[in-house]
């Protein structure tokens, strides 16, 4: 429990913090000329941190505690961290080309990403409400700036302000819930909260629990707390949107799982209805809301709301298998969403300006066959059609739900997924059945193509080769989480 061992446990976070400050110094003294260099440094640091985390994970599933139990680097935290880092690396790889096109590349962008990842890695390994909140806010502050990164663009600034105001509201609700929990359990550690809930919990405790869940529902954009999502996703620069849809979602979903299982594990009957309601509403609203959209980024925003619903079905089971299924889904979700956003970034008009109008992709299969093929695979995968890998995510989640006897939930959820399939196949229809609109003529960088190809490969039937290692890691992670209950 001495300081040295604590520092060893948080080594990844220390590296991220030091590297972030160092990158800031480079940026401050060299200026925006260094933005490529800073990006490269960022990718290397994140890769290094991912490797260290992977080594930490191979040891004891439960990992080690630091700072008197505030932080625990267990297999669950490791899983979430690696996933978030992978998503961040994808953003770093594709963002310079995007911002350079509009002459807005600044060295701060990679730095913000590194700090956001630092925040996430604190929040997923926190086992105390305070350290969790610190991580969450660090992540959010970086995200607000990233949303309004195109300072001269009205939509981008609007997105940033909207995100900031609503994010602040959510944080307030979260903090209010935390203060109630502290008041009714006498401690801020998850352990204390769990023990206080053992005897059924008082009414104030349940209020606190509800407020915390509402605050987190804002962060993961679960219905009915999703309304900021389409606006922010549409307005923010596309690399930022892609980042928002992946890394912070991973972290927030992981935190939600950790809090519900570790802190509220004894209160299943209190939070299960909330999670089930949010899950079904998210699936339905995410599917229905997407139908009328004409902006492809808004559409992907609704798609991510829809996917959150499926993730929550895994969580709603409250079982080890359910959490493990949710993590598997999360990993596949990251590959699908990252791929979709990279594909969207590759849609450029003759001047190289990004195109977001959904009608512009008409006939893409004739003008850009490879992008169209990849996007088609991603869409069918998001719709959960076998043999694409997205099916596996839905499969494990619904399997867990059926095993936990939530058959009605599973049946309604999967029937609602058919509504979602409508707009996924609509994109395929636009690309394959319609005549070319000849809008998308601009060339894209090789880096985009490489990332898209990797994502497409992961979600192709070849992805099933990953099921065994992925399942193992997810099981270990889930076991770490449920070990204390």
């Amino acid at each position: 429990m001495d300081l040295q061992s604590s520092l060893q446990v948080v080594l990844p976070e220390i590296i991220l913090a030091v590297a972030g400050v160092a990158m800031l110094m480079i940026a401050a003294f060299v200026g925006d000329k260094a933005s490529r260099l800073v990006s490269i440094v960022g990718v290397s640091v994140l890769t290094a941190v991912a490797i260290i985390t992977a080594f930490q994970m191979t040891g004891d599933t439960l990992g080690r505690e630091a700072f008197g139990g505030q932080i625990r680097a267990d297999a669950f935290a490791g899983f979430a961290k690696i996933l978030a880092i992978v998503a961040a690396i994808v953003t770093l790889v594709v963002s310079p080309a995007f911002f350079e096109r509009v002459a807005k590349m600044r060295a701060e962008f990679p730095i913000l990403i590194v700090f956001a990842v630092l925040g996430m890695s604190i929040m997923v390994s926190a086992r105390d409400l305070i350290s969790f909140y610190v991580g969450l806010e660090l992540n959010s502050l970086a995200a607000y700036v990233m949303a309004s990164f195109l300072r001269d663009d009205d939509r981008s600034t609007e997105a940033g302000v909207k995100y900031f105001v609503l994010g602040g509201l959510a944080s307030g609700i979260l903090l209010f819930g935390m203060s109630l929990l502290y008041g009714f359990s006498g401690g801020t550690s998850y352990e204390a909260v769990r023990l206080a809930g053992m005897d059924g919990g008082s009414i104030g405790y349940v209020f606190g629990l509800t407020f915390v869940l509402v605050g987190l529902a804002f962060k993961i954009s679960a219905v009915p707390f999703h309304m900021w999502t389409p606006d922010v996703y549409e307005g923010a620069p596309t690399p930022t949107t892609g980042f928002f849809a992946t890394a912070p979602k991973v972290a927030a979903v992981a935190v939600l799982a950790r809090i519900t299982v570790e802190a509220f594990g004894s209160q299943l009957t209190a939070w299960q209805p909330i999670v089930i309601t949010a899950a079904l509403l998210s699936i339905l609203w995410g599917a229905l809301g997407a139908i009328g959209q004409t902006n492809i980024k808004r559409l992907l925003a609704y798609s991510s709301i829809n996917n959150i619903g499926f993730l929550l079905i895994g969580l709603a089971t409250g079982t080890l298998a359910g959490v493990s299924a949710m993590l598997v889904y999360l990993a596949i979700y990251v590959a699908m969403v990252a791929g979709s956003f990279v594909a969207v970034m590759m849609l450029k008009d003759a001047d190289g300006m990004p195109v977001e109008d959904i009608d512009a992709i008409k006939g893409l299969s004739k003008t850009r066959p490879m992008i169209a093929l990849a996007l088609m695979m991603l869409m069918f995968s998001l719709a959960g059609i076998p043999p694409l890998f997205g099916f596996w995510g839905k499969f494990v989640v619904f399997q867990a739900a059926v095993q936990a006897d939530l058959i009605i939930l599973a049946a309604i959820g999967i029937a609602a997924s058919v509504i979602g399939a409508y707009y996924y196949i609509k994109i395929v229809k636009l690309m394959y059945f319609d005549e070319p609109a000849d809008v998308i003529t601009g060339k894209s960088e090789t880096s985009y193509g490489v990332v898209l190809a990797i994502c497409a490969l992961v979600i192709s039937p070849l992805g099933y080769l990953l099921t065994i290692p992925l399942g193992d890691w997810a099981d270990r992670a889930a076991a770490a989480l449920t070990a204390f209950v």
Partner: protein
Amino acid sequence: MDGFPILSLMLLVPLVAAIACLLVDAKLARMIALVATLIDLALGVVLWLNFDIGGAQWQFTERQELFAGFSYALGIDGIALVLIALSVFLMPICILASWESITTRVGEYMAAFLIMELLMIGVFCAQDLFLFYIFFEAGLIPMYLIIGVWGGANRIYASYKFFLYTLLGSVLMLIAMLWMVNVAGTTDIPTLMQYDFAADAQTWLWLAFFASFAVKMPMWPVHTWLPDAHVQAPTAGSVILAGVLLKMGGYGFIRFSLPMFPDASAQFAMLIYVLSVIAVIATSLIALVQQDMKKLIAYSSVAHMAIVTVGLFAFNPQGLEGAMILMLSHGLVSGALFLCVGVIYDRLHTREIDRYGGLSINMPYYAVFFLLFTMASIGLPGTSGFVGEFLSLAGIWQVSAWVTAAATTGIILGAGYMLYLYRRVAFGTQRNEDAAAMPDLNAREWIMLAPIATAVLWMGVYPESFLAPMRQDIAALDARLERVTPDYDSNATAGEGRPAANAMPHVEAGEAH
């Protein structure tokens, strides 16, 4: 043949060919597709010849454990064998049918068809529940593209309808499958076929599977996707749709619903009868007034498949055998009828019945083939349609005379709309000059139609060839259904017992002559 993975090879050939088709130009893609489907046909013949009739129930089994309880388990019984034979038989014909009519994106088109072939064979030989589901569901993607990219004017609406209807049906089945595996603890289909689920659970499971198979079949009132999809699909797409895809619904009933949920099947038998009888009468009447040839044949498909469901739920060997033969027969006959439509559509580019007339004058060979398939569709003795319809109705007669009477009207109406169609297209005066100038069948079209005509006559004259591999499996299924057989207003005398399963073929072989 022991240990040689012939089923895997049959899956691998179209997969490799599909990938190759994506990479080469149009001419080569056509050739690759044809060669690959012919190889699969040859393998199918080898499979049939090596199938040990009366031997083990499951033959050519392969098993490889995969992840998370999944296993790559293949194997066929007689029922699967004949359906696989049907698929590999129709595939080269489909490729030939698209030889000239498909000119855009030929490589992708051929690849989509080859993937379809892979998935169809996979559905019939999968022995793992989830492997079956993957094959069953994955067919949506190529079929969606085939209808949407190469279809007719209203193709987008048809492709949406096809995709969403069938998806909704099958996702509910997935939940039921998950529950079954959770309870029974195995994904092995042969084991599940012997597993007795609790009676009240069977009701729900049966309904979930019904949701999927009824859409695929298609049964009234969820048949509406079929006419749209058929009319808009290219000729070969229609052939595959009618020939094999619809059989997946019937296969699902005979492989899953009946053996796995016998109590629920008996409980819902009346529902099936009512829906089927409505389908037979309603869709036959609708077919009578169609102006579009493909739509007419599509509605006739719904009517024929309704007789299949009646036969399946007769719970006796005649009904089951009749349903199977009728499925095979319908696969050949409606496929051939769609090809016949395709032949004249390629020449005149319209499916409007009134635009033709008197074709027997300028296209005599065509008229002969068309007549043969029309008669087979009506169920004339000597053709495959008779054997299937007669056996199915003989089966249901033992359960309910009223249902039999109502279902039989379908055959009368069927004769009505098919003969009416034939008269308007082939007989009468040559009303339209352009139709009168159409040339008769060319060599390619001969090669397409002649084998089907042979098969139709063979099945009509000597159905034993096709019944023999299935007999043992149908007897096993009948034994499982023994205790639940419903008896509504049957005229069969109690105590006499049923005719033995193997007594039937001689009877109908005699009548067929």
